[in-house]
């Protein structure tokens, strides 16, 4: 023990360095979500403000990320999209991969893969410059956000509580997104508004 401590201190030299201050990234729960306008895979533009009065879900998407594959191969993501869009929720799958990076899709490719996967988002939004991804500080796929009808952030984080790429974990996981949406739509407060997201890095 003594040796370790000695080595620990010997490895160090004397002087003090100040680290640069941390720039605040993203927005917090209850704060106004960043305004955005993006074009979807069909060429239609969507602004967040167009959906004022509705719940909006943002799902960061990269179809080649194994964590995303888990939720699409199990049918989990499609089922969430279908069930909540039927209840009037606006669901945007956002692709922030830069051109040439994994997960980047040309509009026609995005249309094709959405059909192939049987996905049911309101729209697949294309964010090749990563502007919206960075505004929300989206770091992983799938990184999930819920925006309330007043435009405030109501949930951010992981899709569920089992950090894995294993399809078998989907049915035994606690899904934070459906839990939060159900509580919100029933007029209740969300218990878990923030969880650490898991996934692959967003390929900005």
């Amino acid at each position: 023990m003594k040796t370790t401590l000695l080595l620990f201190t010997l490895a160090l030299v004397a002087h003090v360095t100040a680290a640069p201050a941390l720039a605040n990234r993203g927005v917090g729960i209850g704060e106004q979500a960043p305004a955005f306008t993006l074009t979807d895979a069909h060429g239609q533009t969507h602004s967040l403000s167009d959906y004022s009065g509705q719940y909006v879900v943002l799902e960061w998407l990269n179809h080649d990320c194994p964590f995303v594959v888990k939720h699409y191969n199990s049918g989990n993501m499609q089922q969430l999209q279908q069930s909540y869009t039927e209840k009037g929720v606006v669901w945007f799958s956002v692709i922030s991969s830069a051109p040439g990076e994994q997960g980047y899709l040309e509009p026609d490719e995005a249309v094709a893969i959405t059909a192939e996967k049987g996905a049911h988002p309101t729209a697949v939004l294309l964010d090749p410059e990563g502007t919206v991804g960075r505004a929300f500080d989206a770091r992983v796929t799938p990184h999930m956000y819920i925006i309330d009808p007043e435009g405030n952030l109501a949930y951010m984080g992981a899709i569920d509580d089992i950090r894995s790429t294993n399809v078998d974990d989907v049915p035994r996981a606690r899904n934070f997104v459906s839990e939060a949406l159900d509580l919100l739509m029933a007029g209740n407060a969300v218990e878990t508004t923030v969880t650490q997201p898991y996934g692959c890095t967003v390929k900005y």
Partner: protein
Amino acid sequence: MNQHNRGYCRHEPCLHRNASISTIPSVLLLSVMMLFVTTSTNAQLFSSANEEENRVQISLVPSSSSLYHNEGVVWIALHMDILDGWHVYWRNPGDAGLPTEIRWQEYPGLEPGEIHWPVPSRFDEDGITTYGYSDEVLLPVPVRFTEASSQSSDNTVLSVQANWLVCKDICIPESGSAELRLNSEGVFTDYDASASARVHHTLEHLPAAADGWDATGTIDGTSIRVVMTPPEDTNLPLDPSTLYFYAYDGSILEHTAPQQMRLDGRNMELILPTSRYMPSQTDRLEGILVAEPAREGSTAVQALEFDIPLSRN
């Protein structure tokens, strides 16, 4: 049999019951088959069916030549040989990724413990920070053995199945198996003294308990202020710029943010920016304080493990 059934099940309730009995297992079987199909499609897409094609090659390395070298415990390390440019993850992978997982095949009298994680490296990618290992790493596990394990026959095999996520610009889940063979005396038949020496080197460089240190933290706005008082014999002052605190729980600290370390008399002060994802009930900060090598090419890394009680301002 058919004739008998037909005769017996002439009545509707019987036919109905018969139908239910045969339908339920088919549905179950179908579900199981579908699950299997889904899983194998996954495997084909995202990990190589052939372990030789994996980006990470694994093997098991014992710390001694025999099971009975030390009293009741032998360290067995999972060696991960990682393809250039790729990395695997620490226990807290940071902003993305997944820690490596080892599953031991059951063997009478052997009780494998948890991985003792060596000090990780930091990987920064587009403003996203992850913690892990590149090139190669040995993940040591203390394995206890009891009397029962001494009754081994010749060619006993200890085997593990490991699962890991390996990433470069993309991530791939891989898995592999590795084994160690033992003879009836509990001697590892493929024992390699130089490989074993590297396990010892890894063990010697594992984070040590911060004995004699006093550390408390305060959650203050968007950071945790930790005050550490080292033991009397510690040779202060230190160069705080070489220090980095790696938290075990990935939801507490902001991995991308620079940490500030400064000296205040005999105390050391750490300002650790918190994550937006820190749970509100957080009351401890467990992790390792690492003195990272200051010079290029230096491999001297020392780490101390802390469990810091937190209060709120």
